[in-house]
Structures are given as C-alpha cells and as structure tokens.
C-alpha cells in the first residue's frame, strides 16, 4: 500500500464493500515507492509505517497496552494487599504506624508536581519549544530524584528499626510460636507502639506529633498522656513498654524477662482483636483506631512482618518504576538537547509521559492504602 496516502480512517477501515472505482485508484501501483523510496519520507518515519500519524498512534497504542500490563502486574500486589488487609485488619492497623505520613504526603506532592512538568514537557515538544522542553524534562527528572531521596530516607528508618523485608532484617519473624529475635522485636514494638500511641492521640488534636518524625521512642510521659486512661501501658514504665508486652505474650530469654516483669498475666493469652479490648483500643473519637502490640492476638503477631513485606514489595516495585522512568527521561533530555523533537516528531516524549503519569497514578493509590489507613 505504499501508494496510498493513509489517513486516520485507515485504522477503522470501512467494513462495507468498497466501490470498485474507489479502489482502482487506490491500488494503482507506484513501484518506485513500493521499494521503499525513502527520499521524501520524514527522517523519523520507520520504513513499515506509511505516515507519521500512523507511527505516532501505533506508539501510543503500544504504550497504552504496556500500561495495561503494568496495571495488572501491580494488580497482583494490590490483590495481595486487599486479601491480607481484609483477613488481618489489626496487623495492618498496627504495622502502618511505622510509616511516616508526612514523608508520604510530601512524596505525593513531589510526584504530582513532576507529572505536571512532564505534561508541560509534552506540550513544549509538540509546540517545538526546545528550551522549555529541556527545562521541563529536567524538572521532571528532579522530581524523580526528590521522590527517591525521600523514599531512601524512609527505607533507612525501616532498616534501622528492623522493619526491612527478609528474615534477617525484620524483627517480627516467629519460629514455632516464639519470636526469632526477641531483642530486635522489643525495640521494634517500642518504636511502633510509641508511634501508634501517638496516632491514637490524633483524636485529641495533636495529630500524631509524637510519632511522625522521631526515630526515637516517645519521650517518657508522652505515651502516658496520649494513650488515654485505662490502658495497661499507661501504668507500665513508659521507658520500656515493649518489654512489658513481650514478656506478657511469650517466653523471652531470661535477660528480657528480668528487664521487665509481666505486667498482667491476663495478657499472655490470645487476645484476638480490638474487640477484646473494647474501650481500650478503640478511641471514641474521630474513628481512629489505636492498635498496640498487646492488642494483637498471637496469630496476628506472627503476621505483622507480612505488612512490611507487602509495603516494601509495593513501594519497591513502584520505586523501581520511578528509577526506570528517570532513566527514560534522562534519555529524553539527551535527545532533546540534540534537538530531536519538534512539531513533527514527539512520540517518545508523549509515550514516556504516559508512562510517568501511570507511575504517578500508582503512587496515588499506594499512598492512602499504606499510609492513611485507619
């Protein structure tokens, strides 16, 4: 069909029978073009396409299909998330306490801004504004840098508190009903309980200040104030609340036991869910649920690490996509500096833009699901 000037209607070829006279002119052979007389073809038009428009639309369709595969791939993880979230509510309510809402929100803003600059870059490419294009691509790239930087800070905090994925790095592993790393566990519980206690206080108007930015355990006394009356923890030594719970729920090594004797033998049993602690766990205000280690049943305690695995798989796979996107945008910057793009040819900017928006979109789902649940 090289002889045919192919326009948009080509792709929706009329299913009705064609008029013969119509066709005869279409199919008049023009052998010089049939063998790929590429002379008057735009330089970016691949040999197997007839028009730049066809090539552009193919590229876009290809990218949309690729994005469909991405959505399904992440869909598997979202599905895993939904199943564990549905089956182990309290585990998620407990585990998310380790995440930092402020960093998450900041990253959301950073990514949204980079989506804006990306869209702007596409427009600049379409209009042939070379300098603006490069500026916007660089801004988008920097958005990626910012996002990954913040992610690195967050991951570092998880690593420091033994909340990393993997048996060696996560404090919440159990082995035949006993914690694998009692000391690490005590520390991690202290960390998360402190933050969760803070969050529970959110309904009192402090909005979780206690937990948000500190890697340290809550200051003595703070926990007491925020945890509310009637809570076991409030009576315990605020400096070692975790140790209390550890001892209460399973037999730790002797040294841990010595640190803090059991606060209440009643806690050693299976405390199934927040319901068992009605009035203790559920703060009556604003629907916030405050889950502490002692509120988790024995089975659920063994599953807390899965929250972190899912968190890391989801944000890790997403982060990998951000990195790939940054690589692609870096490539676009190089190409744009060589003045490759213009009104006639901007397909790569456009389709990589689509990809970047999807990466942004996935984060828009990840952020509330992981950071804002309650």
């Amino acid at each position, binding site marked *: 069909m090289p002889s045919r000037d192919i326009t948009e209607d080509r792709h929706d070829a009329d299913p009705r*029978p064609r008029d013969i006279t119509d066709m005869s002119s279409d199919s008049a052979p023009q052998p010089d073009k049939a063998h790929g007389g590429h002379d008057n073809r735009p330089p970016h038009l691949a040999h*197997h396409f007839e028009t730049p428009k066809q090539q552009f639309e193919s590229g876009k369709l290809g990218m949309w299909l690729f994005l469909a*595969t991405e959505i399904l791939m992440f869909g598997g993880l979202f599905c895993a998330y939904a199943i564990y979230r549905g089956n182990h509510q309290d585990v998620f309510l407990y585990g998310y306490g380790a995440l930092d809402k402020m960093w998450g929100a900041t990253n959301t803003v950073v990514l949204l801004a980079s989506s804006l600059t990306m869209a702007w870059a596409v427009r600049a490419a379409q209009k042939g504004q070379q300098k603006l294009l490069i500026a916007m691509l660089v801004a988008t790239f920097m958005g990626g840098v910012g996002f990954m930087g913040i992610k690195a800070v967050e991951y570092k905090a998880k690593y420091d508190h033994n909340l990393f*994925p*993997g*048996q060696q790095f996560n404090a919440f592993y159990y082995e035949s009903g006993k914690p694998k790393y009692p000391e690490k566990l005590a520390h991690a519980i202290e960390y998360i309980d402190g933050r969760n206690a803070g969050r529970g206080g959110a309904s009192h108007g402090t909005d979780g200040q206690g937990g948000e930015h500190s890697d340290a355990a809550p200051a003595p006394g703070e926990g007491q104030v925020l945890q509310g009356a009637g809570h076991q923890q409030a009576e315990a030594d605020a400096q070692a609340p975790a140790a209390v719970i550890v001892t209460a729920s399973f037999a730790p090594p002797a040294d841990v036991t010595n640190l803090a004797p059991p606060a209440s033998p009643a806690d050693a049993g299976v405390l199934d869910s927040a319901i068992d602690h009605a009035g203790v766990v559920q703060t009556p205000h604003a629907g916030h649920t405050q889950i502490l280690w002692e509120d988790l049943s024995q089975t659920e305690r063994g*599953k807390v*690490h*899965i929250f972190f695995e*899912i968190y890391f798989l989801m944000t890790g796979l997403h982060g990998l996509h951000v990195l790939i996107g940054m690589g692609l945008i870096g490539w676009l910057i190089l190409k744009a500096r060589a003045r490759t793009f213009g009104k006639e040819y901007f397909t790569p900017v456009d389709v990589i833009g689509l990809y970047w928006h999807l990466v942004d979109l996935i984060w828009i789902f990840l952020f509330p699901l992981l950071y804002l649940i309650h």
Partner: protein
Amino acid sequence: MSVIQDPVNSGVYSGQDQPGGTNYINHSKGVMSWLLTLDHKRIGLMYMVSVLSAFALGGTFAIILRTMLFTHSSPENPISDSGQELYNQMFTLHGAVLVFMFIIPAVPAILGNMILPLMLGAKDVAFPRLNLLSWYCYIVGGLFFLFVLLSGGLDTGWTFYTPYSTSTSTSVAAATLGAFVLGFSSILTGLNFIATIHMLRPPGMGWFQLPLFLWALYATSLIQVLATPVLAITLLLLLAEKVLHIGIFDPALGGDPVLFQHFFWFYSHPAVYIMILPAMGIISELISTFSRRHIFGYSFIAFSSIAIALLGFLVWGHHMYTSGQSGMANAVFSLITFSVAIPSAIKIFNWLATMYKGSISLATPMLYALAFIWLFTIGGLTGVFLGSLALNIHAHDTYFVVAHFHYVMVGSMMTAFLGGMYYWWPKMFGKMYNEPVAKVAWFLIFAGFNLTFFIQFIAGSQGMPRRYADYLPEYAFFHKFSTVGSYVLAAGLVLVLLNWIHALLKGKKAPQNPWGSNTLEWHTSSPPPHENFAETPTVSDPYVMGAWDYDESIDGYVHNPQKAQELAQQGHH
C-alpha cells in the same frame, strides 16, 4: 459475512521469483545480520530454531519419564530414592520446558511472527525492535532453564506450588526468573500483535475481512497482555518468598499457600487459551483452504475466539476444587467452565459445516487439521467432565487429568502447529516437502498420540494418581501401553524433523501459492522478499479462492485478475 473488496488487480501474481532473486533469507548475510535483524520473518525463523530446540529437549524428558514408568517397583526390586528424585525432576522439567518454552510461544512467535504481517499486506509488525527484544527475552529465559538443568534441577512440577516450592533445595529461584523473563517475551509478542492488527491493516481490510488466524492471534494477544503480568508478579512474590521468606505464601510464616494457587491459575488457565486459540486460528485457515470452500460462520468463529479469551479469565478456580475454596466458588467456577464449551463447540461445528460438501483434499496440513478436530473434541469434552464438581473430586490429580490436558495442550495444539508448519512451509522457505513421508509421519504422530494418552483416561478413572514415580501392579498394563505409544509418537516427530530437513536441503522449489488459498501471504513470492511484497497486494475476501487457477506446470495456483474482478462484483449482490 459481508465480503469482498477490491477486485481490480494491480499486480501480476505469476508465482515467479522476485527480479534479482533476493528474498528475506538471502537478503543479507552473516550472523549479525540475523542476530540484529528487525525483519519479522527472520525473527520468526530464529524463534523457530529456538522453540523447536526446546521442544526436542522437553520431548526427551517426556521419553525418559515414560521409560521410567515402563516398570514399577516390587519388594525384591524397590525403586531407589535417586530414581524417584530423577523422576520428579523429569516430569517437572518436561512440563516447565514444554509449557513455557514450546506450547505458549510456538504458534504466535513462530507462525504468527512469520505470517501476521504478510496476512495484513504489511511490511513488518508495529514494533520490530520489541519483536527482536522478545526473542532475546526468550533466549535469556531459556538460559535460565538451562542453568536449572545443570544446577540441581527442579522438582516442584511446572506449577511451582507453595509451600513445597519454597522449601525444596532445587533451583526454584532460577526457574522462576526464567519463567518471568519468558513471560516478558510473551507479553512483547502479544503487545506487538495487537498494535499491528489495529494499526497496520491495509486499506479495505476491516475487522471482518481479517483472516481468522489473525482474529485468533488477536484474542491470544489479549490474554498474553492481560494475564502474563499476573504471572510475573506471582513469580516475583514466589521469588521473594524463596529468597527473603516474606511469608505471603508460606503457612509457617503466616502466609496462605492457596493464595499462590489463585494467583498461579489466574494466569495459567488463560494460558491454556494462549496455547489453543492460535491453534484454532490455524485450523480455520486449513479447513477452508483444503475443503476449497468459504469458511462457514466467519463471524461466529471470530467472536468465539474473543469469547473464549474473555471467559478464560473467569474459570481459574476449576483447578482448585479440592483446595478448600468455598462450595459457592466451586459451583460458580464449574458453571463458567461449562460455558467455555459453547464457543469451543461453535468453532467445531463451523469447521464441520465448512467441510460439508467441500472438495476436500487430504494434503498433510489438512490431515493435521482433521486430527486436531478429533483430538480437540476428546480433549475438550473430557474438560467438561472435569469441570463438573462431582467427577472432578474423583478424578482430581489422576491420570484422567493428565490425559485430558495432553489431548488439549499437546494433541490439539501440537497437531495444529505441525499442520500450520506444513501449510506455510513453502511460503517460509520456498521449498516443498516430501508429501508421502509427511503423511507417514502424520500417521505415526496421530496413532502414537492416541496410544500414549487415551489409555491414560482409563488408568486415571481406575485411580492411578499423577506425578508418582511408581505404581501398583494393576496399573502396569496401562503404563507399558502408554510408554510404547510414546515411542511411536516420538518416532513420528523425528520423522517430521527429517522430512523438514530434507525439504530444506533437497526440496522441490515451491510455487507462490501451492494451496490456492487467498489470504494475502500467498500474494507474494515464496519465500517473500525482504519488504514482503514487490507489488501492493489487493485486499479481497480471504476465503474466496475462485480467482486462483491451478497450473500444472508449477504444481501451484496462479492468480487470475479477471476472475477476481468477477468474484468481487458477485460479492456486491
């Protein structure tokens, strides 16, 4: 179906070579001209060599395991532990290699790559670079499996069920990575085909003038694009479970092993249709061509492909009736499973109706098509048996299941693939094969296949469990019989290979159109030139073959423009 396009013929289809005699095979020379080629036909050939190598490897494993099953243990002669381990490795590698490296890629990656752009009168697929990348993904995935083979093997079965797969010491991680990379190869092919069929159709070829092979490839590609990513994430999760012990599937760590089964079958049931749909597309072409009749019920066949693809996403639970999922889930999955039989039967009936009163020629491709109908009917109907809850509980994990899916995945898919290979062989290589030898090989394959697998239905219904290295003496007859059958099947396949090699080396020169079919790939020389068509082919109803006259001197068909015009005019009324 409303038919018919442009009758006016612009080119002269003489069956003669291109001027200068160059074609895509000798267009450029040197290893690099192949390894860096963007030509869909060369990529198809590279796929052919690699996929057939995998087929030979997986087939060898099959013969080894059947040979091991020829005998069973007795108190005097017990089966050794190492023997059992070897058996576990053999049936696992047999399944994994053949599923991921032969059955899934064979038709789309070899014949689809080769033929799809030609059928569209296009110069290439939409994304030639991705096409080449998909081949490299295939090779890398294959290297992972090779590594598995040399580094402790794999004994999980091709399904990688947890928790065994996360606790065995065999190379699950490498196999998982291999399947992951192979998945990308499959995704890239599917993505490319969808974009190509959307964007590169020639003027005058609407959706309902597409050859049915392309409808089938389109439906297949939808599954490849929509289901494979779920396998990818499943395998990543499995890998994370294996390496980091994340605990999502491992009950010892708080995970849920049945979740793995859900994830796995969400891909792997649709994958069955990745295997069978393109095969059905081939059969539609073969039945029409060799009955010399217009395909019957074009739009029914076209839509049934899409229906199978979509329904295929909703039936995965039929692999898990005994996993403890709820009775309600079982019933729903069973019902939807039954419903897949409807579009499948639509195809069968339309093929039979096409043959009715046709002028049937029993050339080798047609013999394979007939074998397909036979084998697929058995495979499909036993699938309905297994879809019913009560029988499934009885037959679950028995040889009945083994026989069923071999009838579909091997009997049907493989015969369609071989039929397609024979059908397009003259186009791909410009050489004819030896017809009598091809027919003998066909007979050995058809007979050998049925000997091997039909008796497994009986063994299974008598309670012979699958995946066992040993069995009770009462099953000895079934196993011995089946093993002998597999040797016949293997002999037939070796004969096919010899037949093909002979055709390449000594085959008679093929005419442009040895079969008289009217799809566009027959409107160019055999083999086609580098850019596919010297002259722009004219689109017309792919199943109206009247414009092709038989020419004895070239033992092939020659296009008659006059007749084409007349036929097109008739088509208007």
